[in-house]
Structures are given as C-alpha cells and as structure tokens.
C-alpha cells in the first residue's frame, strides 16, 4: 500500500483522470487557469530580464511552479490570509497583490511589502519557515473571532528541516487552527537535494506525526492542486483543523538570480524535463483533449499578459522616489528619543549636502 499516493486530475499528456472531483473541471475554469498561469509566467520571465538589465535587484524565479501557486491561491476566498515566501509571487498575484508592488519589492523597496487594502497578504518570509507559526496564529484568531476565514502558508522542502515547521504544525493541530500548510516540493533547497534534507519518503507523511490529514498532489497539475486545496480550506472552515499539502513540482532555473545551478545539478536535464512536467504545456494539452483550445484565444491571452506586465513595469519605474524618513518612522508607532534624535541628525546632514 502506498499511503501518500500522488494525486492527479490529469496525466502528463493532459488526459482527464477517472478520479472523484475531476468532473468539476469546466472550460471556464481551464481558461481562467491558463490566463493566470500565463500572466505569472510572463511576470517571472520579465523579472529575470529586468534583473539582467540592472533594473531590478536579486530575484527568486518560480518558473515551473506556476500550477502549484496559482492552483492553490485561486482556491482562497477574499477574506482569507496568505503567508508567502520570497518565491511565491505567483500565489500573491493570483490572490490579488498588485503587480507593480511585487516588482517594487524586488527593487529593494519596502513599499513592495504592502498588499492592496483589504487583502490579507503578508510580506514574503525571508528567513526559512518562520511564517508557519504566524499563519497558525492568524488562522486561530479567525476561528476565535468566529469567522469562517482560513489561512494558507507557503514553504519549500528545505523549510521542513527547521524547528518552526514543527512548531507551527504542532500548534495548529493541537488548537485545530483553520490553516492549510502548502508545501512546494521543488526538490532543491538552493543546492541541497531533498534526499539530503530528509530521510522520509514524502513530505505529506509528516502530517501523521501531527494527527492531521496529509495530501500529496502533482504540483504541475493545476486542477489537482486547485481542488485539493479547496477541500483542505473547506475542512478548515468547518472547524476540522489544518491540512498539510505537498505539491511535487520543479524549479527549472536558478534558486535566485545570484545562484549558479550548474554547480549542483545538470541544467540540461532540467530543460529536458519540460515536455513532461511543464504545468502550462500540460494544461494546453488537456484543453486540446477536451476541445477547449482555441489558438487565437491563446495568442490573445499571451498578448494581453505581455501588455499587463509592461504596464506594471512602467508603473513600478515611475513610482515616487523612496522617502528616507520611512526608515525611521515605522520602527515604532511613535519613535523613541534615540530614533528621533538619529533621524534629526541625519536629515540635517542631508540638508547640509543640498545647501
């Protein structure tokens, strides 16, 4: 018996699987998913190209992980909470983050951390796994306030080695917090392959230790990700507590634009995987199989996405200059005398420079 079998709604050739839930896939859903995945892929490629031109700082690409992020984040409802890492912009964009702001974040602007009004999207967690307990806490608050809102928290395979992973999951299971722990197993933590990260066969099976459901999905199958996340969120809303989802996926490129993947893996092999695993290609095949595909429509989608991203870049680049005072003004609600004094001295020095 394989206790944590990989769940698929469509196979690699895009054939619909005979699995409960697959009948819910509609043409509209398929088209919406294709549009979102195309948008975030355009974003990702643009970000890399801007970084290479020196118009963006170090960037963490996610190409290959679009289905995992878009599929899961599109299962949320408006008032839910989303706790991302530095690689989860596809999820935050899907959930309604502003494109220019996400670009700004990678340009070293703190404004990039601020999601649109009314959206509970937390700034990306940079230290590994620290966001898991936060999500547990935010979810518990919703439960204790009596809402049916839930939280989703994203993390990589490497994150499962940190203590915070255990602590966040354990609290959530003890208190039945309405939170979905969404793992993207892209099989590498920078250069360290998962076989060096853990000795367990799957990440999903770690749920057993916490007495919560564990789900292993094909992270490149957008429908599997979407519907399984939806189920987990519904369980959470019904008061049945957390779920651990492992979405098995792959990052084609480097860990960040400062990383050289050829040091630790064969990049040629990574490229060659694409026809089998690429989440967009798979959806395209599926749509063709189901008779949903329309080439003109697809071209139109791609064109629109390019335009949307270009205009986001323009907006990012025309954003007002950063305000020096911001570094002093948001440490406390009211600055302490130390910060106040340091701010005054520094601003005086800057004024002196101008005069």
């Amino acid at each position, binding site marked *: 018996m394989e206790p944590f079998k990989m769940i698929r709604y469509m196979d690699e050739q895009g054939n619909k699987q005979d699995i409960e839930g697959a009948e819910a896939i509609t043409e509209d859903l398929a088209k919406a998913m294709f549009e979102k995945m195309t948008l975030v892929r355009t974003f990702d490629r643009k970000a890399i190209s801007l970084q290479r031109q020196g118009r963006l*700082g*170090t960037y963490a690409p996610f190409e290959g992980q679009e289905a995992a992020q878009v599929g899961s984040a599109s299962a949320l409802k408006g008032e839910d909470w989303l706790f991302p890492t*530095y690689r989860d912009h596809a999820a935050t964009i899907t959930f309604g983050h502003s494109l220019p702001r996400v670009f700004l974040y990678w*340009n*070293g*602007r*703190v404004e990039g951390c601020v999601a649109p009004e009314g959206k509970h999207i937390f700034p990306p967690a*940079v*230290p*590994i796994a620290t966001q898991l307990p936060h999500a547990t806490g935010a979810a518990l608050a919703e439960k204790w306030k009596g809402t049916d809102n839930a939280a989703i928290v994203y993390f990589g395979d*490497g*994150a499962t*080695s*940190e*203590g*915070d992973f255990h602590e966040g999951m354990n609290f959530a299971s003890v208190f039945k917090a309405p939170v979905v722990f969404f793992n993207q197993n892209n099989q590498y*933590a*920078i*250069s*360290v392959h998962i076989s*060096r*990260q*853990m000795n367990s066969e799957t990440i999903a099976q770690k749920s057993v230790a916490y007495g919560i459901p564990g789900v292993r999905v094909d992270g490149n199958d957008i429908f599997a990700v979407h519907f399984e996340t939806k189920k987990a969120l519904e369980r959470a809303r019904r008061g049945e507590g957390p779920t651990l989802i492992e979405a098995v996926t792959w990052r084609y490129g480097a860990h960040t634009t*400062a*990383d050289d993947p050829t*040091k*630790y893996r064969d990049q040629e092999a990574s490229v060659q995987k694409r026809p089998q695993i690429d989440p967009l290609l798979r959806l395209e095949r599926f749509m063709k199989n189901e008779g949903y595909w329309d080439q003109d429509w697809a071209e139109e989608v791609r064109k629109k996405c390019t335009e949307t991203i270009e205009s986001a870049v323009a907006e990012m680049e025309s954003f007002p200059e*950063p305000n*020096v005072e*911001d*570094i*002093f003004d948001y*440490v406390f609600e009211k600055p*302490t005398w*130390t*910060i106040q004094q*340091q*701010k005054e001295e*520094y601003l005086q*020095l800057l004024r002196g*420079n101008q005069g």
Partner: protein
Amino acid sequence: MSTTMTNVQKLSLVQAVTDGLRTMMKERKEVIVMGEDVGKNGGVFRATEGLMEEFGEDRVIDTPLSEAGIVGTGIGLALNGFLPVVEMQFLGFIYPAFEQIMTHATRIRMRTLGKYSVPMVIRAPYGAGIRAPEIHSDSVEALFTHMPGIKVVCPSNPYDAKGLLIASIEDPDPVLFMESMRCYRSTKAEVPTGKYTVEIGKANVLTEGEDVTIFAWGAMVVIAEKAAAEFKKKNISCEVVDLRTLYPLDKETISASIQKTGRAVIIHEAHATGGVGSDLIGLINDTSFLYLKAPIERVTGYDVPVPFSALEDHYVPTVQRLVKAIDKVIHF
C-alpha cells in the same frame, strides 16, 4: 603573531578564508566543515569552494536547512573530539541557533568544571552595503559580545582573515567568526601560503596618528582609513585601530592609543544602542578617562532594522559622517 613564512599569494578575504580552512583541514583530521550549501555548491559565497572535492563528503558536509540543528550537532561533535567549523549562511539567519549558542555552546565548560568544552567555530557572513535582500545584511555582533563564553572575531583584510580563522579553529572555546560580505572581494592582499595565526584579542594599529583615534572593525575599517587620509591633507593625524576581536577587547592597545591621542571616534555599522561602541566607551572610561580631551563620538547604524536595499546607503555609516564626528572631537 607566529608565522612559518613560506610563500605568499594574493588572495581576497573570502579566498583567505578558504585557504585557512584548507590549511587546518590538512593539518588536523578532526576539523570538519558543516553547513547549508557548503559542499557541492562550495558555499553561496564560494568560501568552501573545492573543499568537498579535496577532503570528501565526510569532512565537508551539506546539512539540512536548520541552524539550530547545525550548531547543536556541532556542539555534540565538538565535545566529543571533533573541531567543527560550521557556517551560518548569513549572520541574519543565525537566530534559530541563538538558543544553542546562548544556553549550551557558551556554558558547557562552566557547567562541567572544564570536563567538557566546545571548540567550535561559527562562521557567518554579515553586513550591509551589498544590496542583499531583507535580513541578509544584519550586523548583530553585540548580541554575541553580550554572551558570556564565546569569543567574537571580525577580520577586515585577507591576511587577518586567514590568521584569525586558524587561531579560532585552534581556540579551545567557541568563536563567532564574522566575515564582512563587503570586504569579501573588495581587495586582494598578500597572504602566506603556510600556517600562521593572528592572536585573538589583539587589535591592530593600522595607521599611527597623534590627534585622534578611530576605532573600527570589518567593513568600517575601510571607511576609517579614507577619513584618516582626508585629515592627513589638513595636517591632522588620525590613528586607525582595527579591533579585529570584539570580545575580548584589547584593553592595552585601546588604552595606549587613547592615552596618546586623547580623542576617540568609534565607527560601527551595527545599531547604536547596546552596540560594541558602548562597551568601548566603558573601557576607555575605566582605563583612560583623565587623558580624554573631548567626549568620545560614535558613528553607527541607526536603531532601525537595516533598510531595504533602495535606502540601505542611508543606514551604513559613510566617510562624510565619520569626518563630521572627527571634526567635532578635534574642535571640542
């Protein structure tokens, strides 16, 4: 300083670190290197480049992503015969290991009346000014100088980096070895190929001067030397002291310099409050209060998290800020 001068080679600071590790791994089989990405990848800054090929996977170990695990396991290895040199990928990610360092690495000797000890080195790149993402730029040496039971070392040049690293590996107690990312590749200098040490706890008078002493470490040494050069043009001579070790401070060198110049400016990129600068002022009060001709000035990072890269330059002390402080003590 003991040297078996054989040959010299031109190395950057990060290459000097690699060379120091290699030298000690060759000399003592107990020395092992552990951390995230230190093996196949050779470290994200290439500080352990080539070591896995040379010494094998048993001595250069890619660990799971867990700072508490790395330091905690390192403690166990150290108290049972190994000499682990563990890498924190960035000082800003050392916090999960804080408990292991604070409550165990630093106290085992005391708790066992010397029966066990932890001869471990924790290497950690640190500091702002290289446009790294959030948290990567922290400069929190004071958290560790405040801990009883660990030495804190911070070289500013390739020669010191290798010599101090070897001394740290040979030290019978835990050492936090801070490597300035800004200094990693900024210059190359001559470094002996063989084994040599730079004594822990000894500051270095880099430039002699009469009128004012500038105390600095790590990346701020470069700023201090630039400011000293500016004042030289105005016939004011600055003595630049590179502290090199932040715990324990070099009482003799520090007080001798103050007693000569009578004025001091301290520069550090760490936050002002509770920074190592405060300790230095305490030490100067204790040893040399009556020699002072002016209150001691501090040029530091502010009491704010290191800003995102777009505003980072407003945080890190500059030559201009240092010059202003020096002017103030000279014209007090």
